[in-house]
């Protein structure tokens, strides 16, 4: 099983609910009120950016090439082939920002205060990515690639 996040840009309104729920999910308390008063403000792994009246949620896509893994001088980033996921080991990370320097999507940000890269991990600590349910318009899709293909291909009538 290797689900990924996809975004339906025809639906996305850039309401940034995904950003909010993501940041809260990355806080130590995992609750909005408490998160707001945490000393180091949690950062969202997803950022919605607009171009020509369309909105694009930008987050780590766990890409096939994953240059961040090659660039990681600390061996903190690795690629899990079965989960098709870029994995992160906080214990090994030294906060050198090589990953930020090579991410082709600008999807890794530096949390300077914590010295850790802010990067979508598909909410490994939860059942599914938190942004999924938070999106009020259903623009966020979480599927395996094959399932997505089926969904996208209009059924041919016999």
């Amino acid at each position, binding site marked *: 099983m290797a689900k*990924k*996040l*996809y*975004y*339906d*840009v025809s639906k996305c309104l850039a309401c940034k609910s995904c950003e909010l729920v993501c940041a809260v999910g990355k806080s130590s308390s995992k609750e909005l009120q408490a998160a707001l008063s945490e000393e180091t403000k949690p950062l969202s792994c997803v*950022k919605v*950016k*607009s*171009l020509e009246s369309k909105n*694009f949620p*930008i987050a780590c*896509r766990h890409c096939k090439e994953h*240059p961040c893994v*090659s*660039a990681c*001088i*600390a*061996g903190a980033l690795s690629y899990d082939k079965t989960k098709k996921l870029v994995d992160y080991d906080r*214990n*090994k990370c*030294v*906060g*050198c*920002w*090589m990953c*930020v*320097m*090579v*991410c*082709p*999507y*600008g*999807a*890794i*940000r*530096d949390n*300077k205060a914590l010295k850790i890269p802010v990067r979508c991990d598909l909410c490994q600590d939860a059942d599914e990515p938190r942004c999924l349910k938070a999106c009020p318009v259903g623009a966020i*899709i979480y599927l395996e*690639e094959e399932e*997505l293909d089926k969904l*996208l291909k209009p059924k041919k009538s016999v």
Partner: protein
Amino acid sequence: MSTKKIVIIGNSAAGVAAIEAIRERDNASKITVISDESYSAYCRCLISNYLAGTIDENGLIYRDKKFYADNMVELLLEKKAEKVDVKKKNVVLEDKTQIPYDSLIIATGASSKMPKDLKGVSKKGVFAFRTINDARDILNLTTVSHTSCILGGGLIGLKAAYGLKKRGQDVKIIVRSGRLMSQVVDNIASSFILKRFQDNGIEVLLNSDVSEIIGNGDMKALKLDNGKVIGCSLAVIGKGVSPNVKLIKETDIKTDKGILVDEYMRTNIENVYAAGDVCQAYDLTMGKPEINALWPHAVEQGRYAGANICGDNLKYAGSFGMNSVEFFGLAIISIGIFDGDYETLSYADKDKEVYKKVVIDGDRLIGALFVGSIANSGLYTRLIKERINISGIKDDLLDENISYAKIKNLVKEEKEKIYI
């Protein structure tokens, strides 16, 4: 699949990536890795963190012993490859053992350049800074040393200075040129870095050179070219690196600065590949073969060499200078060309210690510098690497809010399925 004997000399970034690429494709061939060090692969770039005491030896491990077992790799540690015989197709170790190969990857990396003609350079207390052993020897001496001198203001020298400062040494950096990191950043960025080092209690002597290292056996002092003498019992040399090519000197393998390779990481000799700091591959920003002795490139090149040994025909696009470091909380990223006779756009805020600069050649981005604020720097790496025409987004290049959305329609993206 036919089984081969694959030999890899060097067990670091390039060697490990080659192992992984080979085993993704071929579980049958025999892989032998030769290393003259005594550890399984470790994070060479982090020996300064180890010196600083922010990580321990365990934290340095890049691939543990299990990795070699899992990947069915015969790992020969503490064995130096003395020479390669490309006619007989074998590697001769220092102890004269011969190791035959069908395919060979030379991933021997580089060594610190030691200024041979500097008087006293071989005295005790003078160190290179390349291996765990170097770091450990330095660390041992810090228990009795009070003042440490660093020769060279490049990345390695500064990392050593940082580590030694964290260990409570009184650190002085002696730099021949007029500024720090002169090979990778411009004057303005240098001045930010200089300030950060000085603010953290490190003395930087610019436009100075060491003329002699003084002492009997153990070093006791440094003499500068202006006659001044600095008492110190520990010195680290950070004067660049040179590729480890000695073992192929007797072969017809072509070298320039390093071993020359084509876009498949092949040398001019059949079945012999090279990758990492030892090799000189195509440089995308220079448009000619160059050594870019950097970890990410070593990994990529190793991966390409491994894949191509297995019959893939993967073309390596080329490398270019890029680095990211942080000193005392100041983040610095340098990508591609940072100066010269080109169009540049820049923004500097001295108070906030933030600096951003882009270097443009016609309608291509060829370099970018970030100090203090490094968000989205990956986008610039990509614009440079893919040689994107940036004329339409020039005005956005210094904008803090630049994002992938902005460059989305310009870059090469396989049919982008992420956005539907």
